[in-house]
Every structure is written in structure tokens, then in C-alpha cells.
């Protein structure tokens, strides 16, 4: 099945690292709660890409595993989005704002 190696694996990992960094920045630097959530989704996607990229560098069973782990990540990400958005709805109802910095009832 596997033909000649296509892309340079280092390039794939670099792309994953960059997307992860952008997602993390969005998660920690933005105040809009939706963007924060989307940043988290980006991070998860970057990790999946990293998995797939690494699976190309390994043979046999390990390469299957590298494509199997993202399945679980996707499923958990779906659950996370589900609960996360429900929490956002709850928070917006309570605080009437989507500013993440406003959700700080625990700090005092």
C-alpha cells in the first residue's frame, strides 16, 4: 500500500507545532470565550496532525496506532465541545458577558 514517502515528516511536525502555538495563543491571549474554545479545538487538531505525521515515520503496528489515537481525540473533543458550550451558555446567562476575564468568581 505504502508508496514512496511523500512529505518531509519534519515539515508536518513544524506545521503541527505552529498550529498548536496559534491555538494556545488564542486560548490564553483572547478574552472572547468563543475564541478561547476555538483555540482549544485548534490545539487538539494540531496534536492529531502530529500523531498522523509521526505514524508515517514508524512501521507496522505503531503506524496503525498513530492513526488510532486521533480517533479517540476526536471523540473526546466532541464531548468537550458539547460540555464546554453548555457551560458557556450557563455562564453567559449568569454574568451576561462573553468576556473570559469576567468569569473569575474563584479568585477572591
Amino acid at each position, binding site marked *: 500500500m505504502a508508496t514512496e514517502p511523500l512529505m518531509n515528516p519534519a515539515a508536518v511536525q513544524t506545521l503541527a507545532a505552529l498550529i498548536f502555538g496559534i491555538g*494556545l495563543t488564542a*486560548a*490564553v*491571549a483572547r*478574552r472572547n470565550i468563543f475564541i*478561547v474554545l476555538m483555540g482549544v479545538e485548534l490545539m487538539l487538531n494540531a496534536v492529531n496532525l502530529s500523531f498522523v505525521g509521526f505514524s508515517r515515520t514508524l512501521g507496522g503496528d505503531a503506524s496503525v496506532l498513530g492513526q488510532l489515537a486521533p480517533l479517540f481525540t476526536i471523540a473526546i473533543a466532541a464531548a468537550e465541545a458539547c460540555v464546554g458550550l453548555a457551560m458557556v451558555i450557563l455562564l453567559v446567562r449568569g454574568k451576561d458577558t462573553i468576556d*473570559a*476575564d469576567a*468569569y*473569575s468568581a474563584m*479568585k*477572591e
Partner: protein
Amino acid sequence: MDASLLWLIPALPLFGAILNGSLSLAGAKDSYGPPRGLVATFAVLMPAISFALAVAAASRLGSLGGEAMPPLRAELFTWFAGAGLDLPFSLTIDRLSSLMLLFVTGIGTLIHLYSVGYMQEDRGFARFMAYLNLFMAAMITLIMGSSLPVTFLGWEGVGLCSYLLIGFWHKTPEYADAARKAFIYNRVGDLGFLLGGFALFHVTGSLDYAAISAWFQSADAAALADKRVWIDAGLVLIFLGCAGKSAQIPLQAWLPDAMAGPTPVSALIHAATMVTAGVYLVARLSDAYVVSSTAMTVVFTIGCATAVWGAVAGLVQNDVKKALAYSTVSQLGFMFMAAGAGAFDVAIFHVFTHAFFKAALFLSAGAVIHGLHHEQDMRRMGGLRKQLPVAYLAMFYGWWAITGLPFAAAFFSKDLILESAFAGHVHLFHANIAPIVGGIALATAGLTAVYMTRVITLVFWSPSRVDPEVKHHIHGTPMTMAIPLIILGIGSLVAGFAWVGLPLGWLGVPDGGMAFLQGWLAPVVGAAQAKLAAAATAAGVVHGDHHALAWTVAGVGTLVAGFGSFLGYWLWRNGPKEVPAAGTSTAPTGFGGGWTFGFDKAADWLVVKPVTVVAFGIYWVVELAILGVAGWLTGAGARALGDGYAFALQRSRLRTSLALAMLGLAAAIAALIMVGS
């Protein structure tokens, strides 16, 4: 009785405990508690069925006769496995455990029945019955366990139940203290049990009794010499565990205080069954003990010392239950003396007879206390024969049995102990101390007659000193209490014949002739005793005429018992010198107090005070030096930081915390990479 049913014997009382415990919890809000009849039925029925099963098992063991009958053994499940140790949770009934099982379940059932009457008016009736049933389950596990850990499970279980039942009336602080005292003393002994078990495992490579016995039976002199230190230390440590459970010096002080529990508890746990577990364990490990003369000497001398100390202390007590408790301590000393002299079957025989007569004595004392509205001071009793005839009869039979007058229980068992002591070969510093100790034991037997006659004289035979208004309202003995009293009273008269075996021989039981019990126990302890006798012969000891010794001891013993009884009656026939007011402390004073509480004082000075000093030292070091100084430094540092930058950081936004966490993660990964390469 099939081996596959063995698990039922401990499981039934456990089931009763769970059931009654649930009922007790369910009825906790009801002012009267759960229905008494239901609780009583289950509580008595469960041990009764266990008793029936034990009878079936014993008859199965006895039916084939001879020594070839293998023990009943059931492996229930693997308890733990791995690291070179596969330990099944297995139960065994052999000749020794079947005998213990018979009287534990039998007398246990009777005392359950008695408790139904005794505790009838108590608010915690169901709780009490649940504890008693739990005790039965644990005690049966202790007896039936085929290995040290299973026995230890029951050992801890009976300790727990003992604690729960001594402190049953936990609203009285002294009673709760007594419960804690018992528990802590037992913990010290349990440590000995554990360490001794480890040592035996190191020596034999197994924890199973059969394997341990096999190793010691087959070990040659070189193997024994190689492991000498481990064997001696292990057996002495296990005896320390037995001393804790069976109230031997130096761990004996908890048992008299344990009388804080309700009287049926004193009869069942602290006289008839649990406290004899130590003797049982020594007999169970008889094959090991006979190869260690050090351990045998320790057992023998400590048994003798405890017997003397308990007898003298029993003489000066004013509380009827305390007097009986010290008597129990003394009698347990006799049992260990027999075991130390190498007569394990005699020790078990005394355990057996003692269970009957001490239960009878305690239960009749309980009937007296119940009748006199919780009066326990013997100086305020007297002349109760007419009012409490059943209690009197039971105590009379018990008294007859314990003093060693012919032909009740201790006439046989105690004479056999004296005989084994005189005939024994126990060496201390290369001198045979057995005959000297035998002489002391003979005097102690006389003392036993004195203090027991004192008890029965003060309670029944001397003129009445009971308060007139109490005298008119003496509670009778209800039927549930009377039946066990009568059975146990008769039992204490005839139990001694189990050794002689005449009635069983007449009934056609195989081996039921002379020395029935000796033959019954021979498959378990016979090899050890034969080894000891062979060693004595090899050492060139000339055996005297066995029959002459037996008849001499029996004759002299009877004379001493008779003289002691007469002395006891003569001294106290008119009651005590002065009758204290109601509510006066029953603790003995003067010499009696010094003797009774000497060990408590010693323990206080040797253990409690040093530990307290060390504890306070640690407290000051930790509290002042460490927590104080370090705490102050930390606090000052935090305050200095907190008013400045750290304060802002601490109260910052969620995303800052997240970013900091990520930075920390990056740092951790960087550290890992650096370390890894």
C-alpha cells in the same frame, strides 16, 4: 458432615451479626429498638446451628477412630498469592480444633441464650447480640484457620469484638477506657504474633500449620542449630502474642478491667473462649515449641508467675467479677504451665474444663448482679441461697469444680497439670526447675481453693448484708438465664470425665475408655510430646513410677484443696470486717491494692511516662521549632511577596494561570529532555 460445608460454621454467626447489625441500625430511631424476639431468635439460632455442624464434624472425625483419620480441610479461595507465597483461605477441623469448636459453639450458644434474659431491658439489645455473633464468627475463624494469617484474622476479630463489648456501655468513661486498655495491650501482643509469624515463615518457608509442623518434625539437628536464633525468637514472640490475648504477665493488666463489659461478655469472651486462644495457639504449634527449650522455659515460668499473681490478687478483691477475673488470669497461668512442661493435651483439657466452670461461675455471678440491681461488691452480699437458688446451685458446682475437690472438673485437669509440672523437665540455667515450680503450683492450687471459697462464702454462705429495700426487690432468674446456668453447672461437674472417658466408654464411643481425651488429641500434639519424652530419656533422666506420682499428686492435691476450702470458709464465714456504704469504690487498698495494681504502676513508669515524655518532646520540637519557626518564616515571606507582585499574580485572570501552567509544562519537558540526554 462434608468438608465442603465447613465454611458454614463461621459464616452462620457472621450472617447473624450482619442481620442483627442491620436490624439494630434499622431500629435505631425507634425508642424501643428492633423487635427483641426476632433478634434473639436469630442470635441464638446461628451459633446453635454452628454447634450442630461442629458436632457433626467431630463425630465424622471420631467415627473412623485411630490416628489415620485425616483432618477435614476446605480451601475456600486464594487469599493472596505471589512473591513465593501462595496463601489459600482455608479452614481445617482436626482433633484439636474440633474440641475447641465444640465447647466454643456449645458454651457460646448457651451464653447467647443467657444474654437474651440478661440484656432484655437494655436499649442496645440488637447491637449487643450483633457483637456477640460477630465474636462467634471471629473465634470460629481463629480456631478453624489452617494457617497463621487466617488465625490472625480471627485473632484480630475477637480482639475487636472484645473492645466493642467491653466498651458496650460506652457512655461511662471508665468503661470506654477499659476497652481502650484491652485493645492497646492486645496490640502489643499482636505485634509479637506478627513478628513471630514472620520468623517462623523465615525458618520453615510456610505459614500453614501442617507445613510448619512437618518442617519441625523432619528437621535434623543441623537444620535446627542453623536457625536456632530465629526459632527461639519467633516462638517467644508468638508467646508474647498469646500472653496478650490470654492475659499473661506482662500483658495481663487488661483482663480485670475488661470486666466493665456486660457479664455475659465476661463469661463468654474473657473467661471461656477468647482468652484461651493463646493456649490453643501454643498447642497448635506444639511441634515447633518442643524443639525450643528457651521458649518452653519462658512459657512455663511465665505461666507459673501469672498463676501465683492472679491467685493472690483474686484473694483481695471486693468486686465479685474482679475476683473471678483474677481467677481466670490465674487459671490461664496454669494452662500455660502445662503447655510449658510439654503436656499440651493437659493444657487443652484444662481449657476445656475451665470453659465450663468459669462460664458457670461468671453467669451465676451475673445472675446475682442482675438480682441485686447491679450491685457487684461482695461485701454487700451474703445469704442469697434462698433468694437466688439457681445462681447458688451453679456457683456451687463451679466452686466445686475449680477448687479441685473430687470428682468435679478441676480435680482431674488441675491434678494433671501439677503432675505434668512435677514430671516435667524445664531447664533454667541448666537446672531443672520443674519440681520447684510444681511445688509453687501446688500451693497456688490451695490458694485457688481459698479465694474461691471466699467468693462463694461472701456471696451465699455468710450472713446477709444486703440493703433491706434491695432485699425485698430481688429479681428472680428468668428461664433464659436459668437453663444455661443449670447446663453449665452440671457441665462443670462432669467435664472432667472427658479425660477419664468413662461415660463415653459406656456409651460405646471408640477409644472412649481411659485417657479418652489424650487419645483424641494425640494426632495433633502426640508427636511433639513423644519427642519431648524421647529427648528426656536420651538425656538420661530416670522416670519415676508414673502411677505413684499420679496418685500422690491426686491425694496431696485433694488435701490441699480441702484445707484451702476450709480456711476460706473459716476466715470469711461471718462476712467482711466492715460493710461499706453503697457506691463505695470496690478497689482493694493497702497490700491488696499494691499487689493488684503493681503491674499497672510498673507499666505506667516503664512505658506510659517515658512515652508521654517523648511525645511531649516531639510535640514541642514539631510545634515550636519546626511549625513555629518555619511557619513564621514562610508566613513572613509570603506576606512580603503577597503585598507586592505575588499578590497580583495570585488574583490574576484565568488565562494567566493557564499560560503559567503551560510555561511550567514547558519547563518540565525541557528538564526531562536535559536529563534524558
